[in-house]
C-alpha cells in the first residue's frame, strides 16, 4: 500500500502544474450524471451511475476490463445511440441541460463534447483535411484563411504542428501511432469543444508516445474539461485530478485522485489499486 502511494507521489511530481486538491473540489461542476443505467439488449451494463465532473480538470475512470467505464464515457456524448439495442436511462446534465432531452440536437452536442478513441482513427484523408473536417461540417470557417488558422492552431494545441507542418497534404494514416492519436486530438479540438472524452487514448501506443500524450492532456486541461478512461492506474494518477473507480457496472468510489490512490475508503478500490482485481 505504502509502496503504491509512494509511487503515486513520485509520479505526481512529474506533472507540471499539480492542482491543489481543495482547489479542485471548488471548481464548478460541468457535467452531472444521476442514476445512469445502460442496457445492451437484455444485458445491463451500468447500474445507476451518479457523478459530478469538474470544469477544466482531468477526471479519470479506472477499473478492470468490462467494468462499464467506457460505456459510461460513451453515454456522455451519446455515442451509445449508434449502437443497436443500447438503451440509456437516468439523466446527464451538461451545464444544467439534459443531454438526453429529445429536443436536443445530438450533432450539436457532439460538437460541444469531443471524443478521442482507443485506437487512433484518422480518416482516410490528408492531415489537413482530417483536422478541417469537423469545422467544415459545422461551418466554423468562413474562408480558407479562417480554416488554415483553425487547422494550424488545433495542430499546435495538440503538439503536432512542428512535426507535420511540411506534409499537411499527406495522408493522416501515414503518421506513427502516437502522431495519429495527436492528430485525432487536434481533430477533436478543431471543432471547439468544451469537453473532451478520451477512451483509453494511450492503450495502443508505446511508452514514449504515451508520455507525450499525457503531457498534452495536462496542458489541455487549462482550457477543456477532460474525461479519460484508462486501465493504467499510473496514468490516472499522473494526469487526473479526480478519479472514479468502476467495477462490474457500478461506480464504487470517486474522489480527488490523490485520496483515491493513497487512502481509498472502499475495500474493492483498495483491492484494485493493490492489484488484487484486474
Amino acid at each position, binding site marked *: 500500500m505504502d509502496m503504491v502511494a509512494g509511487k503515486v507521489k513520485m509520479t505526481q511530481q512529474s506533472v507540471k502544474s499539480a492542482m491543489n486538491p481543495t482547489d479542485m473540489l471548488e471548481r464548478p461542476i460541468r457535467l452531472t450524471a444521476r442514476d445512469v443505467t445502460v442496457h445492451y439488449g437484455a444485458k445491463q451494463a451500468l447500474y445507476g451511475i451518479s457523478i459530478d465532473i469538474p470544469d477544466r480538470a482531468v477526471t479519470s475512470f479506472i477499473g478492470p476490463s468490462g467494468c462499464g467505464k467506457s460505456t459510461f464515457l460513451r453515454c456522455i456524448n451519446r455515442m451509445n445511440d449508434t449502437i443497436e439495442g443500447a438503451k440509456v436511462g437516468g439523466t446527464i446534465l451538461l451545464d444544467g441541460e439534459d443531454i438526453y432531452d429529445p429536443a436536443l440536437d445530438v450533432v450539436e452536442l*457532439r460538437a460541444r463534447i469531443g471524443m478521442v*478513441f482507443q485506437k487512433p482513427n484518422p480518416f*482516410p*484523408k490528408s492531415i489537413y483535411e482530417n483536422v478541417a473536417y469537423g469545422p467544415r461540417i459545422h461551418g466554423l470557417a468562413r474562408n480558407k484563411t479562417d480554416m488554415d488558422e483553425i487547422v494550424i492552431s488545433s495542430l499546435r494545441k495538440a503538439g503536432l504542428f512542428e512535426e507535420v507542418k511540411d506534409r499537411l497534404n499527406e495522408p493522416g*494514416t501515414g503518421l506513427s501511432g502516437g502522431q495519429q492519436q495527436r492528430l485525432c486530438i487536434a*481533430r477533436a479540438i478543431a471543432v471547439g469543444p468544451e469537453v473532451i472524452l478520451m477512451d483509453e487514448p494511450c492503450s495502443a501506443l508505446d511508452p514514449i508516445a504515451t508520455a507525450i500524450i499525457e503531457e498534452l492532456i495536462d496542458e489541455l486541461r487549462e482550457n477543456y474539461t477532460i474525461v479519460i478512461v484508462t486501465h493504467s492506474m499510473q496514468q490516472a494518477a499522473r494526469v487526473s485530478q479526480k478519479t472514479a473507480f468502476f467495477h462490474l457496472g457500478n461506480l464504487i468510489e470517486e474522489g480527488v485522485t490523490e485520496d483515491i490512490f493513497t487512502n481509498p475508503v472502499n475495500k474493492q478500490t483498495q483491492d484494485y489499486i493493490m492489484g488484487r482485481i484486474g
Partner: protein
Amino acid sequence: MNALIVAGLLLVLLGVAYQSGWSRSRGLVTADGVKIHSRPQYHGSFVAIWAMVPTLVILGLWAWFGGGITRDYTVSLIPTDIMTSLDQVGLNAAIARIGALASGYGVTGDSPAWEQAAGDALRSFQMLTFVGVLVLALVAGGAALVYARSRIDARLRARNAVERVINLALLACSAVAILTTLGIVASLISEAFRFFTFIHPFDFFFGTVWNPNNAGSAGNWGSYGLLPLLSGTLMITAIAMLVAVPVGLMAAIYLSQYAAPRLRAVAKPMIEILAGIPTIVFGFFALVTVGPFLRDMGNLVGLTINATSALTAGIVMGIMIIPFVSSLSDDILNQVPRTLRDGAYGLGATQSETIRNVLLPAALPGIVGAFLLAVSRAIGETMIVVLAAGNAPVLRGSPFESVATITVSIVNQLTGDTDFTGPQSLVGFALGLTLFVITLGLNVVALYIVRRFREQYE
C-alpha cells in the same frame, strides 16, 4: 461398368495400402516404445500414395495409348482383300461397325461373316487387354505397397513426403486454371492471326462497316469493321452502368447504414436472388415489356425510340447488374472499420455526412473494383443483347436505335455450319480476342486503382 470396377479396385487398393502402412506404424510404437518421426496416419498415407502412383500411371498410359492399339488391332482383323477395296471413310466405317459388333450395341442390319469374326475377336481382345492392364496395374501397385511398407521405420520422414505430394497436388490444381487460361489465349491469338491473313488488321480495327459476306469466297469476303460493334458494346455498357451504379450503390448504402436489421435480413437475399435470374429471362423481359414501354414513352414526348435499341438492352442489363454492385459495395462498406465511423460521429457529423465524407472515401477502392467487375460483366453479356438490342451492326450515335455488340456478332458468325476456313467464322476469334483484351485492360486498371488507394489510405 468397367470404369466402376476399376474405381472400386482402386479404392480397395487405397484402403489396403493405408491400413497396412498405418498398422505397421502402430506396430513400431508398441514394439520398441521409440518415438516415431511421423504419426501413423502419415505412414498410412505414405504407403497409399506409393501404391497409387504406379497403378494410376499404368492405367493412364493405357487410357492414352489403348485406343490406338485397339484400332491397329481392329484394322489387322480386316481381311486384306476387303482392306484394299476400302477408302479412308470406308475404313473408319468398318472400324466403327466392328467396334459396335464387339460391344453388342448399335448394330443395324446384317453383317458379313468376316465382320462377325472380327467383332468376336475384338471382344475377346478387349476383354484380355482390360484384365491384363488392370492386373498389371494392381500388381505394380501391390509391389509399390510392399516396398513402401518395408521402408517404414521410426525415422522415416513420411509426413514430409506426404506433404510434398499434397503440395504438388495443390500446384497441379492451380495449374489447371492457369494452363486453361493460357490455352484459351493462345488459341484465340493463333486463330485471330489466321483471320488477319484474310482481312487486314487495319480494316478490322478501324473499319466502320460490318457486313460479312457469309457465302463469300476469296476476294469477296465482305467487310469486317469492328467499330460499329465496339460502339454498340460501349454504348450498352455505359447505359447499363448509368443504371446499375447509382441504384446499386444507393441500395448498398441504405442496406448497410440505414436499414433495420430485420429489413436487411430480408432485403439482402432478395436482391441477391435478382443475380440468380438467368440472363435469357432478362432478355425476354426486355424484348416483351421494357422495349415496347420505352417506345411508347418516347412517342409521348415526341422521340422515336426503337423497341429493340441500345437503350432497352442497356437499361435491362443495368437492372441485371444491380445486385453485383450493391452486394459487393455492401460488403465493402461493412468492412470499413467501426472506429472510423465513430470518429466522424464523435465530431458531430450526421449520418449522411459520415457516409459521404468518411465511409465512401474509405470504401472507394473496393467500390471501384466492384464497378469494374460489373463493367466486365456487362461487356461480356450476350443474351439480353441478342434479344433486345436489335442486331443492327451500324455505326450510330443514338441510343434510341438498334445496335449490335461484339458478343452478338460472335454468336451470329459462329452459329450454323462453320468450318473455320474463311474469315466469316474466324472473325469470331478476332472479336473474342478484342473482348478479352478489353476486359483484361479493365482488370489491370482496377488492380492499379485499388492498389494506389490502398497505399494511400492504410
